[in-house]
């Protein structure tokens, strides 16, 4: 029927059988390769790839905690959390993204570029994942977005908490500010456990207590599909708000200090002599911490960092100044304790003092005549202390300085504290390779030369005199509480040491400080109140040494720093105030009026209460 008989004769199945066998082996090899590969993927790499499939499927949405509040000693809120508004777009819901973006830009009056700045990956292939397109839009813009929501499909508003520093620049150096964690911070040990999108304290208390303030982030585990659509919640942990912090600061007194300080640059600290609590601390010039809330502009940052008056510096703890005459009290204490003088030891001052081939002068031309220790402190006689310095020697003075808390950090709860500098013979040799010169001791005995102290060191040393000899650790934090008010950690006043000065000698010194304000020819006369209850000492920190009669009309940056420390009242002091006016000239005339205003303000405040 089909008639192809002749072809059958050509057909040799044997030859093909051989070939088929060979091809069969090749096919088996091919299957073996595929099976091996499948074995490798599913059995050898199975766990690894299963993990990757889980990573595909499970998204963790972070729930950010609220940062703790910071309050003053009376519980008045100093730092609050405010709502800021971010806008995002969900590509899938927007349909035509470009149209929506253009509409949004038009409604809000933004340039077309302003809104695309964070437009990283609109085409990521995950159309249900919101993409942030604008940060920290104002309430006016929020209103526009909300009322036009019909024309803006896919645009969603996220409420993000931001810090609000209620007192703005007046407390900037205490409270600090927050910002996005930097890559260098992330790498350090201090920030282990932090993540790249965390907000951290960058300065001040915000930085110092970041661990307490930040709270614990919560999270939500959701299953998503390939498009990024959230399907169901697999697990959830709540975020825990950060702890609230109560400071020792009194917001009203802080305001008084801010207003009282009418000079260009300097610092004021007010301390409670009986506890070492910092009641107020201001720095001028200052900066506006609210500008840092959601990232400060590069231009503003540059302006802050290049300002020659250094608004970012917290002078109270990191400013280092020669203490000037305020140092005389320490020299007097040392001489009394060492038995080198008695309180009635008299020294003759003719206005000059010879040390080797150099002549040192008293600030008062013609000298003070024959005076005792009390008058020497009251009138701040330099020659009297030149003599005490020679008796004591540099190393003895350094020994007492350390006991008064100079030359090392006080441990105040603020970042960036400096140590100051208390020179010794050994130090000089090490640093300069030269031996100590006798004349340097002479300068040192009136707080000039190498010696440097920070304002907070100086004030607490005076507080120790005021309270009868107890050197406190400066206290800035009163208490840390949970949101519900449970105490997490209490910070009672901490005594660092007792001054190595007898009660009797402290009374001598304290009385001399009273005299400096209330007796005739006292250098702190401006501070004298009707109550005659202020004790104080002025100081002039030389920036460069000047020849006589040259002190008027010198350039600002070469002018001396004006220092003043005082405490009130004489009997049982309740506040101690330190004022530093940078380049303010002579101590008494510039810094004393400021201190006076603060003391008066404080008592007015007390009266009102």
């Amino acid at each position, binding site marked *: *029927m*089909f*008639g*192809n*008989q002749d*072809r*059958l004769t*050509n*057909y040799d*199945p044997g*030859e*093909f*059988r051989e*070939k*088929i066998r060979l*091809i*069969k082996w090749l*096919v*088996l090899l*091919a*299957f073996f*390769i*595929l*099976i091996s*590969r*499948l*074995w490798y*993927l*599913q*059995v050898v*790499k*199975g*766990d*690894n*790839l*299963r993990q*990757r*499939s*889980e990573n*595909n*499927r499970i998204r963790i949405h972070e729930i950010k905690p609220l940062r703790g509040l910071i309050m003053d000693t009376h519980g008045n809120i100093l730092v609050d959390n405010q709502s800021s508004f971010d806008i995002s777009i969900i590509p899938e819901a927007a349909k035509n993204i470009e149209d929506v973006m253009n509409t949004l830009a038009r409604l809000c009056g933004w340039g077309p570029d302003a809104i695309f700045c964070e437009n990283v990956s609109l085409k*990521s*292939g995950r159309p249900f994942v919101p993409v942030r397109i604008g940060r920290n839009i104002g309430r006016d813009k929020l209103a526009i977005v909300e009322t036009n929501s019909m024309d803006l499909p896919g645009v969603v508003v996220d409420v993000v908490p931001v810090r609000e520093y209620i007192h703005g620049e007046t407390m900037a150096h205490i409270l600090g500010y927050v910002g996005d964690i930097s890559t260098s911070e992330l790498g350090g040990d201090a920030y282990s456990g932090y993540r790249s999108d965390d907000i951290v304290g960058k300065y001040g208390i915000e930085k110092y207590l970041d661990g307490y303030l930040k709270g614990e982030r919560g999270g939500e585990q959701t*299953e*998503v*599909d*390939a*498009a990024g659509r959230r*399907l169901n919640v697999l697990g959830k942990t709540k975020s825990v708000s950060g702890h609230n912090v109560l400071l020792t600061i009194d917001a009203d007194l802080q305001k008084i200090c801010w207003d009282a300080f009418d000079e260009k640059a300097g610092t004021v600290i007010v301390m409670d002599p009986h506890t070492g609590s910092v009641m107020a601390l201001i720095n001028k010039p200052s900066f506006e911490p609210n500008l840092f809330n959601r990232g400060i502009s590069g231009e503003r940052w540059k302006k802050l960092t290049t300002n020659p008056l250094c608004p970012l510096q917290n002078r109270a703890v990191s400013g280092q100044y020669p203490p000037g005459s305020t140092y005389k009290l320490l020299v007097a204490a040392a001489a009394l304790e060492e038995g080198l003088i008695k309180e009635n030891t008299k020294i003759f001052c003719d206005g000059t003092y010879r040390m080797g081939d150099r002549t040192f002068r008293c600030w008062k031309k013609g000298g003070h005549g024959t005076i005792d220790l009390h008058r020497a402190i009251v009138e701040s006689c330099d020659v009297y202390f030149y003599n005490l310095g020679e008796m004591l020697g540099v190393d003895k003075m350094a020994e007492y300085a350390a006991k008064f808390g100079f030359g090392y950090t006080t441990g105040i709860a603020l970042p960036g504290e400096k140590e100051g500098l208390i020179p010794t013979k050994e130090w000089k040799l090490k640093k300069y390779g030269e031996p100590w010169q006798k004349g340097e001791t002479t300068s040192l005995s009136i707080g000039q030369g190498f010696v440097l102290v920070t304002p907070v060191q100086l004030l607490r040393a005076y507080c120790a005199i005021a309270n009868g000899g107890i050197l406190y650790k400066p206290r800035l934090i009163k208490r840390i509480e949970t949101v519900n008010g449970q105490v997490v950690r209490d910070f009672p006043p901490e005594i660092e040491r007792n001054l190595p000065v007898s009660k009797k000698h402290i009374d001598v010194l304290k009385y001399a400080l009273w005299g400096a304000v209330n007796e005739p020819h006292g250098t702190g006369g401006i501070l004298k109140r009707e109550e005659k209850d202020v004790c104080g000492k002025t100081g002039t920190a030389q920036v460069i040494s000047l020849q006589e009669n040259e002190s008027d009309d010198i350039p600002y940056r070469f002018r001396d720093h004006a220092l003043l420390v005082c405490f009130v009242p004489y009997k049982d002091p309740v506040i101690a105030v330190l004022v530093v006016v940078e380049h303010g000239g002579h101590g008494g005339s510039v810094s004393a009026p400021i201190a006076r205003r603060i003391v008066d303000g404080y008592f007015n405040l007390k009266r009102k209460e």
Partner: protein
Amino acid sequence: MKIDRRLFANFDWVLLGLVLLISGIGILNLYSAGYNLNAGGEPFYTKQMSWILLGLVVMVITFSIDYHIIIRHAYLIYVVSLSLLLLVFFYGNITHGSQRWLLLYGFSFQPSELMKLAIIIVLARYFDDNMEREYRFGNLVVLLTIVGIPFFMIARQPDLGTAMFLMILFLSMAVFVGVGRKFLIYFTLGGLILAPLCWFFLKDYQRERILTFLNPERDPLGAGYHIIQSIIAIGSGGIWGKGFLKGTQTQLRFLPEQQTDFAFSVFAEEWGFGGVFALMFIFLMLILWGFKITRYSRDLPGALLAFGVTIFVFWGIFINVGMVVGIFPVVGIPLPFFSYGGSSMMILMIGAGLLMNVSMRRFILQP
């Protein structure tokens, strides 16, 4: 035409059984792949069932006609297939930037699939006509013309994968009949010279695919996405799989092209190495059964047809599975009897029909 009753006595139940087994697993798999797909319309697995049923009818028709008649009309079949390819060239539907489909009465049809079978038939005829010990240059020219025309037409669509597939079928059959070593060397050298030239004619997405194959991670969200997600799906199945309907890569749609090119990955994710091993074993059985039919076919055209169809199925399996496990570049070759696709299923059913045709007639002496 009278059909010999003895044909039914020799009916190849094993072949039918293997084909139905694989298609059945394929339907189950398509059910899972479409389980969470709420895009209205008829689900893929029921459509595939219709194709299989229709395919069975076509299969019966195919094995009812003596394959010698089919061989006799080989050139006609070839010319018809070419004409359809030409129609695609002028009237084809464009999807995803390439022109592969022909719309007939509401059905879309892929003539390039038909061409795979036509090439097998026409080559069987040609080799049967010219069963000589030494092939000459003239033979080479004719053969290259026969394969070359559809190759370029399909490559132009562009569908380089299918075009290369034709070339592979041709080479396999040429090796099988023993065209001679010299012939193969010329051909290979020619290929090696032409390959770099081809690079310039490739479309961007084709180059992209080759580069992506070489390093899938170079663009994980773009061109490399398919292969990475496929490897994750397969590997995450582990030894025993995540369970039917429980493959997260599949159900949450991380895996692309689940119904077609990557259907095997769906199966591998949900059934694990155990399931995959079983499936590959069944495929291997099918191939070996095809070789058995080839060996026992009673004449040369039968052997050539049987071998052609078997090797066609083999290359489909090897290339598709090789592609989803990341050892071959992504080319659109479906997994035989398993991936969704009307044209492909029809052609495979006709192919199975041809195999049965040869198998059933091995003992029947022509009157």
